[in-house]
């Protein structure tokens, strides 16, 4: 090969000025495959084996083995963006099916085939609210209880177009209608509401909030996830214009925050959407085929006038979510969602019976998670629980948050017993 290219050595092929050549070593020692696996297993083994009663935006649901099997097929896993749709029909169809399922779950018209996570999807929704013609103004309203990290990500996206991120108060863990009425004005381009909220509370006045947003020509943006959407009020029925959130609650399970942002909107915003879209088309033989479409919104065509800089997204996780949804089917998905609501209620009731705990803090129905008041300092309670093998969130001096799904349900008796000891 060297002879063919006319070089004496591979090093000769590098056209790098001597002054910037790297002649040293990184100091990274190569290991065998088995050694790397052993080392990684040993290192990760330093993680304590805790039962995680944790949520607040990252959820654990059991992922059927068939999801790993099918999504793990190399044709899916090692392919890339479908620039040559004729040899990417499989992935394109799977993404089209994902978009279709999200449309059904939200009642809205168009879903893109993923954002990075819920936080970046929210950031993109804020910038979308600046681009669409139906809104004006440069303020977006978010709940004061918004997860801090999500707020920080939103601020990154808001900084460029000079959007002011302002908060509205919450009451009983959900949006305070009076507070929103006071905070909103015609200079608000987006009202963001979560259902369920970060504390697991289910929003009781969704339609009213949609009407308020509508009165002020603000985008009504709803944060949720596909499991909750299977049960809770359909966003379209509450007047939602955009739905964002964490779609990795299907198909992924706990993954140290690896996420997959869902982004669904009404059709009128289609040409302003960020991210990739798969459309049905026809091929030269007149048969249905799928392709990435409306790419003139995207950075590789539109450069600085693109709707977003997103290129690589979370497509493989969208595939996983779609397979998981297909395996569950509508019955399975609704059952799972009902279980999430039932478990939150039952667990709160059981904790409320423990001396030193009041739960739930918020007089609301809950989904997966809820907050509890602790007589003892919450930090101490959480530390003691950790020693007993359980992880919970500390959300205030005397407040913890507990998330329960079907994966942690079998540990609930032990958890309540532990709480009786530490509370």
């Amino acid at each position, binding site marked *: 090969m060297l002879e063919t290219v006319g070089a004496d050595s591979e090093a000769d092929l590098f056209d790098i000025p001597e002054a910037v050549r790297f002649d040293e070593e*990184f100091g990274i020692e190569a290991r065998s495959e088995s050694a790397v696996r052993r080392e990684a297993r040993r290192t990760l083994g330093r993680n304590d084996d805790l039962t995680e009663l944790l949520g607040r935006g990252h959820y654990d649901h059991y992922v059927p083995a068939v999801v790993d*099997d099918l999504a793990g097929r190399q044709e899916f896993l090692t392919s890339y963006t479908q620039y040559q749709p004729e040899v990417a029909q499989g992935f394109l169809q799977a*993404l089209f099916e994902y978009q279709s399922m999200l449309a059904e779950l939200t009642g809205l018209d168009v879903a893109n085939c993923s954002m990075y996570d819920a*936080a970046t999807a929210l950031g993109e929704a804020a910038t979308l609210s600046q681009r669409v013609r139906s809104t004006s103004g440069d303020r977006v309203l978010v709940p004061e209880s918004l997860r801090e990290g999500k707020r920080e990500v939103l601020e990154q996206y808001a900084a460029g177009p000079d959007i002011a991120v302002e908060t509205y108060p919450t009451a009983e863990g959900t949006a305070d209608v009076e507070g929103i009425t006071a905070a909103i004005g015609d200079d608000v381009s987006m009202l963001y509401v979560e259902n369920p909220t970060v504390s697991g509370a289910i929003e009781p006045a969704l339609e009213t909030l949609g009407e308020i947003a509508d009165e002020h020509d603000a985008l009504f943006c709803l944060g949720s996830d596909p499991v909750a959407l299977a049960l809770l009020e359909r966003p379209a029925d509450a007047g939602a214009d955009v739905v964002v959130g964490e779609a990795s609650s299907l198909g992924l399970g706990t993954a140290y925050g690896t996420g997959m942002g869902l982004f669904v909107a009404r059709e009128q915003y289609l040409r302003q959407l960020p991210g990739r879209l798969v459309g049905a088309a026809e091929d030269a033989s007149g048969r249905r085929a799928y392709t990435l479409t409306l790419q003139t919104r995207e950075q590789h065509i539109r450069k600085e006038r693109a709707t977003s800089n997103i290129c690589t997204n979370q497509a493989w996780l969208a595939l996983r979510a779609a397979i998981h949804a297909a395996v569950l089917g509508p019955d399975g998905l609704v059952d799972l969602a009902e279980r999430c609501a039932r478990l939150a209620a039952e667990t709160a009731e059981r904790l409320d019976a423990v001396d030193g705990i009041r739960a739930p803090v918020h007089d609301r129905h809950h989904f997966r998670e809820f907050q509890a008041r602790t007589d003892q300092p919450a930090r101490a309670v959480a530390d003691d629980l950790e020693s007993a093998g359980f992880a919970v969130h500390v959300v205030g001096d005397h407040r913890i948050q507990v998330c329960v799904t079907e994966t942690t349900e079998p540990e609930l008796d032990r958890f309540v017993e532990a709480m009786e000891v530490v509370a």
Partner: protein
Amino acid sequence: MTDHDQARWTADEERYEPLLAEKDTTEVDVDGGPLPEDLTRDSLELPSLSEPEIARHYTRLSQMNYGVESGPFPLGSCTMKYNPSFTDAVAGLPDAAVHPDRSAESVQGTLAIQYALQDYLARIGGMDAVTLQPPAGAAGEFTGIRIARAYHEDRGEDRSEVIVPTSAHGTNFATAAMAGFDVVELPSDEDGRVDLDALEAAVGPETAALMLTNPNTLGLFERDIERIAETVHDAGGLLYYDGANLNALLGRARPGDMGFDVMHYNVHKTFATPHGGGGPGAGPVGVVEDLAPYLPEPHVRETADGDYERHAPERSIGKVHGFAGNWLVLVRAYAYIARLGDEGLADASAKAVLNANYLAELIDYEVPYGPFHHEFVASAGDQDAADAAKRMLDYGVHPPTTKWPEIVPEALMTEPTETEGPETLATLARAFNGVAAEDDATLEAAPERTAARRIDQVDAARDPTLTWDALDGKGGED
């Protein structure tokens, strides 16, 4: 025509796979269950199939999809190298699956891997500190440019411009605009590199940063990188390194040594994590010491006792991802780097560059610019590059990136990567040369041997149909 027949790409109508919803759907009533009915939806309609049916559906779909293990994938700028399977096994370790809100004390193993990867990447890039949080290359760019803005603002400077070479990735332009900067486009010189005079003219008190890919999208090393760095720094700007082409330089040169202040790594390219049909990837960002205080929080560091902790850098720009980035991708990159080590990484760049040069020698299309490194941009000449690419599909290989960068007419941007052997490169060359010898009519009729024939993208965009509910008979039986 070819020894690389892919029989499963068939025009057999019977083998077309219907949509899930066309097989069977059920609408279930939602009666509220444990919730009052005013909080719940009325019904939900979704596909309703057995697990074996679903398994066959997705298996069939996978057979209509081309991955790196299907054959060569020389998609320029995307570094479609083989993804070693063992990294999947590492990412799948049960202990890797922890919640991001766990206490630092209880996830020392995860933090240790994060710390080790930060350290590896810093060494490889010649950077002083690295964040793993950005979830993709474009997110890394955004992080880096946000850091540049914070840095300038701290010095009381409100710089408004980011300079981007004409030949740069589209993300660079979009990123600068998203971060609120005006984009100043920088033309190339006749050799395809940064035009120093144009750069001199472009920099000034408004310059926040120059975003540069090196080797650039033509595969050419920016030989004047030291002068470029000096020019930008003298104007008070920062130099940003787009890591898309880092695979060419592994162990040969480091952005930090060239004068770059901030860079992103595309771990799904350089460090062989699977591209997943479009993602997830990951886009860690490295910075020099002066910029380390601006990194996203939390950052992982080692304590005096040899434990690991999360901390907020003192002037942090805040978070750029809701949690810790694409962890499942990052842990694969860690495993890949640990497996290769110094020698393997340097060997990767050597073979990547050798393979590109070898393939370029074998093909009949002209390659106007050089000396190139891990990729080259050939010109399809009188042929339409997009048509040529479609025809290459009939030869059973994935074609190069087409019609970009625009500086080469009818561009075929080709990156064979280090993981292909000479026989596969010869197969690729036969595809290039076969297509080069064919007439326009043949090219325009291609592809013929793929799951779908040429797709009418203009029509797809004119009448967007994005869900099965919207299909209404389009190209289908319903």
